[in-house]
């Protein structure tokens, strides 16, 4: 009698284990999309409409190579005139940034959003044109005339590092809206003679201690290449 009970117990255990394994086989597989995302910075063309002194365009792209890591690239061109109290100059050039983003956001099933931190290396090739300047003199005894040298400084370069913080939200299928802020630190730059790179394409305004800030508003499209199980 007891032997039969023991046998039944083991048989039931066996069935339970089979039953649970069958449940596991039934689970829905969650697929995550991996691919290349390509987009544009929408703020720069909008800036160009309202500010005639600034014309810029930037293409952004990233590639998911690990679950939470993305390789990112930004390419851009800029033509911007800066007017200060005593100087007016035009910066014209192109830039390129490369780096990685780490997604710190834990998505719910089916969501593909990102809150990320990133690092970039930036490189820019540009020209500066000193359009005009007024020698700065304290007092109003002799008032300096504004000079228009239209002096062009060509073949200037700058490179820097950026710390990026941003987010991307999938609004429609594979279409992402992104916003990011970057804190830039200049590594080195070739300064023109008797002038300074006060604005660098991609880096933006160069502050006194060689720092800068950047904002990006992007619209990008994901081209899925592979779908992996989560």
């Amino acid at each position, binding site marked *: 009698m007891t032997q039969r009970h023991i046998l039944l117990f083991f048989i039931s255990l066996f069935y339970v284990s089979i039953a649970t394994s069958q449940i596991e086989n039934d689970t829905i597989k969650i697929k995550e999309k991996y691919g290349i995302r390509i987009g544009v910075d929408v703020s720069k063309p909008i800036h160009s409409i309202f500010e005639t002194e600034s014309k810029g365009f930037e293409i952004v792209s990233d590639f998911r190579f690990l679950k939470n890591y993305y390789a990112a690239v930004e390419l851009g061109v800029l033509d911007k005139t800066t007017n*200060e*109290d*005593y*100087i007016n100059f035009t910066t014209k050039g192109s830039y390129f940034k490369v780096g990685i983003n780490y997604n*710190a956001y834990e998505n719910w099933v089916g969501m593909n959003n990102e809150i990320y*931190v990133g690092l970039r290396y930036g490189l820019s090739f540009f020209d500066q044109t000193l359009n005009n*300047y*007024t*020698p*700065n*003199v*304290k*007092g109003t*005894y*002799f008032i*300096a*005339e504004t*000079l228009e040298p239209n002096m062009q400084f060509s073949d200037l370069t700058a490179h820097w590092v950026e*710390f990026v*913080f941003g987010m991307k939200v999938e609004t429609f299928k594979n279409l992402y809206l992104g916003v990011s802020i970057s*804190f830039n630190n200049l590594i080195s730059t070739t300064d023109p003679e*008797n*002038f*300074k790179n*006060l604005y660098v394409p991609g880096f933006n305004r160069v*502050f*006194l*201690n060689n*720092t800068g*800030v950047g904002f990006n508003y992007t619209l990008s499209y994901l081209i899925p290449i592979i779908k992996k199980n989560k």
Partner: protein
Amino acid sequence: MKKNLILMALLFLAILSCEKDDICIEDTTPNLVLRFYDNENQTEVKQITDLTVWAINYDSIYVNESLDSIAAPLDLNQNATTYILVNNLVNDTITFSYDRNDIFVSRSCGYKTTFDNMQIESNTTNWIKNININNTLIDNDTTAHITIFH
């Protein structure tokens, strides 16, 4: 949460690290500094008791003042400036000639003009006995560039 805190701290630091460079605090275009010495005892500073100074065609910069040195602006649109110095109602005229160089200072200050090859083009000697140029380069206004003996 901890991650967020670190991020916030980094953001805060990054914002703090941006310096204000909108206000011009550096030295800009210098003035010409003239100092008055005794002609008899040439190491001795000699004050002028009633001094009036103006650049030709401009307003006075000093009127009936008692001084041993003056700071006179130089015309930064010309390569010469003529000053009239009146010592107790006696006039003397000095014309300074120079070259101008514009030196970049900073974003907010722009360029300053410095003056080089300072020369006395002409001068009258009614009360001024002698003029000495201490420094032909005028790039600051902390030391006297010209010594006038009277």
